């Protein structure tokens, strides 16, 4: 597990409680290698993780919603959430579904990546999709290591380096284009020939090195979570403009998080909780039939008769009550 470097100075967390005596319902997945630290290189990303089946339920023994987090620069809030969602850890809320990483990707909706500079009028600006967190880290370290360590930028980039290769722009994301192999710059898809054409491959930028890559190979997600209303507006507007060629529904949430490190930590936690609840509902819908046969609808437990999609407003409302400081918003859109 790549730890969040910003937490290194904090007091070490209390040791986890001793595992409960072996209960029959502990999923086996928790005991195998998937709950260990996520390997950062493809060689480490070995057999235990790299299941041939890309459907996450196959690999983990549980259905996982595919999630996309979005903020302005794809650096702080969305990356904190990305890390949270892909970090295996059990939470009290729903221990059965949270110990495995969610298939996650993340984006920014801004025109450029903007990081704080020496003054408010001198931000450090980078291009999306072509600049890696590593590049930014090295450049800022060279510029003024003390300043950027002090204001948390270097630790943030260090964390981001461990999550994925570099910031990606939402508007440039071509939904449905497989995220396999190496990242490419300036990719074009010809409508006639099929498949990505051209583009130069980016060295050491394989998609599968990203945290949460497993399950998102098809380039599609079930849920988008933005971290600012502006981003939500941008995402919804972008999806309307794209004209929904894929005919695939996607729930677009907003969780309003202030753009600073502290709030991002809180927001990341809240997003994980929301994802857990949504995932539990989606899984319930699938499990009803699986467990109780095809007529399970009639005998299904509470909420089973209602599908996952239908329960989303309710789940969000419940979540909002617990997180009143993070105003939420939601809509159903189409890819």
């Amino acid at each position, binding site marked *: 597990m790549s730890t969040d470097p910003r937490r290194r100075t904090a007091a070490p967390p209390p040791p986890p409680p001793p595992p409960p005596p072996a209960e029959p319902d502990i999923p086996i997945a928790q005991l195998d290698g998937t709950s260990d630290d996520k390997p950062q290189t493809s060689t480490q990303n070995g057999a235990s993780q790299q299941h041939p089946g*890309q*459907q996450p339920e196959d690999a983990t023994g549980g259905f996982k919603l595919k999630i996309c987090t979005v903020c302005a620069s794809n650096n702080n809030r969305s990356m904190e959430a990305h890390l949270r969602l892909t970090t295996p850890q059990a939470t009290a809320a729903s221990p059965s579904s949270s110990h495995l990483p969610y298939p996650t990707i993340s984006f920014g909706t801004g025109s450029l990546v903007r990081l704080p500079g020496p003054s408010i009028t001198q931000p450090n600006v980078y291009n999306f999709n072509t600049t890696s967190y590593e590049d930014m880290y090295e450049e800022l370290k060279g510029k003024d290591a003390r300043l950027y360590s002090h204001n948390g930028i270097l630790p943030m980039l260090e964390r981001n380096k461990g999550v994925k290769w570099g910031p990606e722009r939402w508007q440039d994301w071509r939904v449905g284009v497989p995220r396999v192999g190496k990242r490419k710059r300036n990719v074009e898809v010809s*409508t006639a020939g099929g498949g990505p054409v051209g583009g130069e491959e980016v060295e050491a930028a394989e998609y599968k090195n990203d945290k949460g890559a497993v399950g998102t190979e098809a380039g599609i997600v079930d849920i988008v979570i933005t971290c600012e209303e502006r981003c939500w507006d941008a995402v919804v507007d972008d999806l309307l*403009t794209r004209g929904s060629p894929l005919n*695939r529904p996607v729930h677009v949430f907003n969780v309003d998080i202030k753009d600073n490190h502290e709030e991002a930590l809180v927001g990341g936690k809240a997003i994980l909780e929301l994802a857990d609840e949504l995932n539990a509902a989606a899984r319930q819908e699938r499990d009803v039939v699986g467990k109780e046969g095809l007529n399970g609808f009639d005998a299904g437990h509470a909420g089973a008769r209602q599908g996952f999609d239908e329960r989303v*407003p309710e789940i969000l409302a419940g979540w909002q009550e617990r997180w009143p400081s993070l105003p939420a918003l939601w809509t159903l859109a*189409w890819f």
Partner: protein
Amino acid sequence: MGDPSQILKSLNEARNICLATPSIYPQVVPGVLPVVGPQQPLELRRWGADFLAETFASPVLAAEEKQKLSLGVLDILRRYVHRKEETGEEEDAAVVKSAVQCAASIYPLVFRHTLSTRDSAEVWAKMAGIKSYILRTMDSAPAGVRICGIKFIARVVQVQTPGLISDPRRPEQNEISLALLSRDHPVLQPSQLEAEASGLLDRLLGVLQDNSSDALVVTATLSALSLLVQRRPSISNKILMTVLNYNPLVLATGGLAKMGGKERVAVKSTTRTTMSFLLNVLKRNPNHPMAARLQQRTEQLRHSLTEVFSETGPGKRSAPDEPIDGLDNHKRMRTEQAIVNGTAPQQQQSQPGNVPPLPPGPVSYAQLFTLNADPSAAGFHVEAIPLHIVNQLVPPLLASIDQQRLTAAITAVQSRFLEYTKRPPGTALEAVKAVTGGEEDDDYDPEVTVGMAGAQAQVMNRMDLMLMEGQQQQQQQQDVGGPLQPFVLEAGPPLTDKEREEYSKLALTRVFGTLAELDKDVKTKGGKKVDGEMKGFNRLASAGLGQDRDGWVTLLIRLATRSTLDLANGEENSIVKQENDDRSLLKRGSGQQHFSMADGIRQTLLNYVMEDFRRRIDVAIAWLNEEWYSDRLAFLSLHPSKPAKEEAQNAETPSKPTMTDLPNYTAACLRTLDALATYLDTRDSRILIRFLSEIPQINPAVLDRVVKIADDPERVQMAAQALLYLIMFRPPVREAAVDAAERLWRGNEEARGAVGKILGRWRPGVLVDEEKG
């Protein structure tokens, strides 16, 4: 087949290969179909439906390939959605959901296949079967399936409504729509398909028309409709109107309190999605014909949403956060020591050592010994207490004196006295104040203040001024809690001559501006007089005084003639007064140095008359009459003792004494006549005659001007007529006029004919003399 998990594993491997190299989809898809068929276990069917939906949605697989593949998957799709009919089992919602997504993706492909190959009735029938089944069951299906059904409908409407043909020569490049379909297709009937699309669109819009509160369905519908607004101009207006009329705030009618968490999410979600929808349309086409309405509706929704989610609910504004100025306790904090902390003055004074300092300036013994700030105690006259009561009171009082407090009080007085003796010795000013102003300190005399703030204050001698300041200072110290004083605005600095001139000119421009406007009004109304308008002296008292042109003209004239009347009597011209005959001369002399308001008005008035003298001659006459009258008034006021004597003189020589005493009138009259004479035309004899007949007084200088008019051969007749008129109808000046006529006759050869007749009647002697001569 083996263990489903093993199969799943190999299926996933196949999928991975496809994702990495999309070109092998055509081989993989037919291969997996039997493995995920309807008779297979649920996991495999789910995988299959997902895989098919993903395949036909994939942007990396070419449309041509998809179209070929689509024919092969129709059967399996049909059996996914028809499962209940075929096997009696309800199909898993996830499978149906993916199957409907897949159907939405292949519908346009199958349509294009059908219209390009004329013998594909069977294929189309399968697709139609799937479509009708989805349409039939979607409303009772789980929500996930239902929303995918909505998207499917939107796709069908898109296909079965004519779109734009961008290039007729290359049909494969065009978007798939009804426009591609030829009229005589054996399988597809364009009119039928279009009618079906129209019906389906109504079904979609029904959700919005009913103001549905199901946020999931509403947002799914709105998002799906967006594409139709973009791509299908023929139906975009209908959709937009429906969305504009949709009210997402139905749930919120009961106010915030009645909404549960789910309702709040729903209201916010539907409203924001509607706003995004409208803004998206606006953004894509800022010149949209309905742009104003889109903008307006968005703003409206934004306001409503804020209103609903403000705590007080709709219709009420929330209370201001801060208390209004004056109610805020912090702002009301008293600075006076007496009320600090809300304790009574006595309480504070009871604390030893807490003694108010002496006021600045001279101090009386009473002040020196008064340690109590309470004015009522200080003002109390002890002698008012009867002696026997004093006798009773004093012993217990003396006994009860607290030694400590007494000591403190003595110390306080001592320190006060010391402090006072160390002050700089009093100035003469203070001494004066102590004598003269001492008694007035407590009295408030508004007249003093007002008078001092007025103009006289500036000329007061210095000591008085300083005295006043001292008083004010003291009053400021005393006036907290005292009676309110009237606020006196300080007089501004006196105007310089230059400023006064500027302001005068400005005022002049403005009053004549008003007159010009009134003239315009008269013109537009056609100059009609109101029937009920008063005539004569009372006309100025009529309701329209100052509001109509006549009233305004009168006002101006009186401003010009009367404003200087009193000033002329003032001190500045006292010398002139005695030499009253030269008043005009002196005025003129001083007028060159300073701008005189009255002369300014006179000049402007003259200009005003000359701008259109034929019509405005009445103004000139009114003005000159006023000038004459005010000159008379001035004359009388200058010679107050004369009237009786004057009357006696007047009886003998009626016009003589006033002849030379009308400086303003004479000057104004001659100037007007000079100006007039320049412009008089041969046809204007009536105007000249009117002028001469109506001015109050005619002196020789006026007649000289008339004679001079006759210098112009064309105007001889006019001058002669004017003189004749004066001779006939104005007896007081008859002699003078006949003299003028004689001068004319003698001095002007050309006038002899016309004037001769006059002289022949009124002074035939002249003609006789001439003939003799």
